[in-house]
């Protein structure tokens, strides 16, 4: 914990710089990544990240210097070339997009590794540490590196802020953008360049192999939480910034630890959490919806059982036991216990030692469910021409989902029928 405190104080100037730089780089990549994610170009990001390697190697071989601007230019050129190749392959051959991407990724990365190995075995001065581009090492960045990368990241963010609405339209419906006369080709080139740049500046701290994760994972995590593009972008940037802090902290407190993998670990963790607990889209929310559906179906079926028994007996005032209910429908023991408990809690049934009966509220609710069932059976026979001996199973499900609005429409379309296809009366509210 001491190290966390020391880290958070940011007393060390180098630490300040490295952390701030990493955060900015991660934010830039995540914001650009939101558009790659929405355009379903996640794989292209991965291909570009790998394809950048030969560019860096060639730039180094030509200049024998590790000037960040020169390496960045090399990265941009080969990243661009890779995108261009993917596009050409797709256009001129009948190969599918994923084949084109995989081919380009493989060839470029292979060449990159070849060149890198060559450099390491050569007697070029200053060659040490080029392998950090593979896995990333934030601590190895010099002040000049950081300032350059942070500057580029800032430029990315500004470019996206400026062209936000056009990028939104372009990602949603590029053909329409073209019809409006927007400079679609320029926008496509721009967003490609932004992607290549975002990847290129992150390579040194995160590495070729994991860079695509920094591009796409924040967007995927953020998407789980919101349906608003702007909120999604800010959330993605927030997740990326937080993870950059985590990565910087880990590599600060344990010197041998690389930054990149920890950033990606943290991001993946956030994404996993998001996919679990996000409202609406999360797994838990979905499970909860399913649970609520199940309970609704169970309790409504029980109300119907009460109603059916009452309908046969000619009175709804009789006290009924769980066994009585089980005679009308195959409820399991557990279902009976759970269902009756819920109905009691909602005051839909009144308990007594000798059993249960529907409360007035419960009777109204039971009539509603039976009415929906019989109305739907009417609809199936009259509108969908189904035979009256085939309709029951369908109505058993649909009765639970019909809203008051749809009920009203059904009533109007069927002109308030009195009896269902099996000649049972349709109970209306009293």
């Amino acid at each position, binding site marked *: 914990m001491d190290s966390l405190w020391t880290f958070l104080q940011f007393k060390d100037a180098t630490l300040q710089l490295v952390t701030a730089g990493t955060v900015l780089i991660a934010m830039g990549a995540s914001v650009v990544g939101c558009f790659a994610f*929405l355009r*379903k170009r996640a794989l292209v990001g991965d291909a570009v990240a790998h394809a950048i390697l030969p560019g860096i190697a060639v730039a180094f071989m030509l200049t024998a210097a590790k000037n960040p601007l020169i390496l960045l230019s090399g990265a941009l050129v080969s990243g661009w070339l890779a995108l261009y190749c993917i596009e050409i392959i797709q256009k001129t051959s*009948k190969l599918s997009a994923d084949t084109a991407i995989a081919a380009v990724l493989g060839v470029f990365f292979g060449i990159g590794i070849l060149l890198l190995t060559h450099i390491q075995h050569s007697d070029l001065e200053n060659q040490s540490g080029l392998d950090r581009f593979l896995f990333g090492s934030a601590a190895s960045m010099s002040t000049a590196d950081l300032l350059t990368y942070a500057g580029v990241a800032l430029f990315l963010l500004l470019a996206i802020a*400026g*062209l936000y*609405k*056009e990028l*939104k*339209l372009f*990602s*949603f*419906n590029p*053909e*329409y*953008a*073209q*019809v*409006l*006369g*927007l*400079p679609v080709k320029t926008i496509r080139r721009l967003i490609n360049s932004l992607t290549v740049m975002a990847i290129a500046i992150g390579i040194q701290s995160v590495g070729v192999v994991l860079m695509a994760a920094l591009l796409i994972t924040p967007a995927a995590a953020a*998407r789980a939480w*919101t*349906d*608003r*593009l702007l909120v*999604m972008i800010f959330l993605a940037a927030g997740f990326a910034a937080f993870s950059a802090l985590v990565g910087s902290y880990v590599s600060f407190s344990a010197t041998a630890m690389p930054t990149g993998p920890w950033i990606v670990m943290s991001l993946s963790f956030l994404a996993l959490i998001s996919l679990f607990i996000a409202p609406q889209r999360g797994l838990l929310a979905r499970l909860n919806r399913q649970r609520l559906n199940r309970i609704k179906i169970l309790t409504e079926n029980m109300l119907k059982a009460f109603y059916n028994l009452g309908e046969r007996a000619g009175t709804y005032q009789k006290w009924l036991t769980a066994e009585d209910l089980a005679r009308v429908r195959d409820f399991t023991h557990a279902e009976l216990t759970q269902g009756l408990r819920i109905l009691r809690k909602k005051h839909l049934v009144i308990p007594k030692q000798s059993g249960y009966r529907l409360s007035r509220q419960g009777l109204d609710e039971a009539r509603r469910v039976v009415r929906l069932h019989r109305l739907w059976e009417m609809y199936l026979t009259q509108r969908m021409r189904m035979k009256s001996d085939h309709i029951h199973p369908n109505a058993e499900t649909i009765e639970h989902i019909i809203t008051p609005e749809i009920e009203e429409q059904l009533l109007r379309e069927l002109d308030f029928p009195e009896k269902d296809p099996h000649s049972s009366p349709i109970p209306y509210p009293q």
Partner: protein
Amino acid sequence: MIAETQEVIPALEVHNLSASYQRKPVLWDVDFQLPQGKLIGVVGPNGSGKTTLLKNIMGLMEPDSGYVKLFGEDLEKVRHRISYVPQRESVDWNFPASVRDVVEMGRYRKNRLFKRLKAQDHQLVTEALERVNLLELSQRQISQLSGGQQQRVFIARALAQQADLYLMDEPFVGVDAATEEALLELLTEMKNAGKTVVIVHHDLQTAYEYFDWTVLLNTRLVAAGPQESIFKKELLQEAYGGRLTVLSKIGDLMARKDFPARETGFKEKEGLGDG
């Protein structure tokens, strides 16, 4: 007088247009003109090249030969007068955007990059939403809309563009009866306001009731003209009685042999030429 001369200019002229996908011809020298101020259907069976025709008109595809004039001009000159409603399935409705976000896109212009929409734009967007009856839903996420509502979003976006010629790709597909009726009413309103609406439509049954004019298409132009002249047994049979066997054989052959759609250097000559 000016009004009269404008009426003479066709809203749309398609001249000898041929187009292909990966060398396979989809449209064979299609040639017709459409008048202004009408509701016009582009009708034909599946795979008859209706959408391809629309894409060529909107400059989304490069034709193999021929050209398109809109109000007597090239598309680039009159772009602001043309509006396009793509097929509903052509976009991912899971995109994080609200109804209003999408309709606002109809107000984006190339000379207003980097700029925010103006008060007047927002006004037009509100009016467009009102006309398609989506004002209450304007903040709703687009994935939560029904098919008919999504179609109305696209139409509102086109309305917000304030165009004179509207090109719609299958707007009646997957909409409920109520939306269909509202849509027809809106289209009639637009026509009465002097707009030209061209609608790609695959259902022959309804086409006769909906439109004033019809372009009957089946990879080649079968006929184009006012309803009465088109809805004749022979013409409909020609359009819907399957493709011409020789034509589709030649098309397949061209795709298989990577054959060019036109000889290089070929220029249309006046007169008979060497043919």
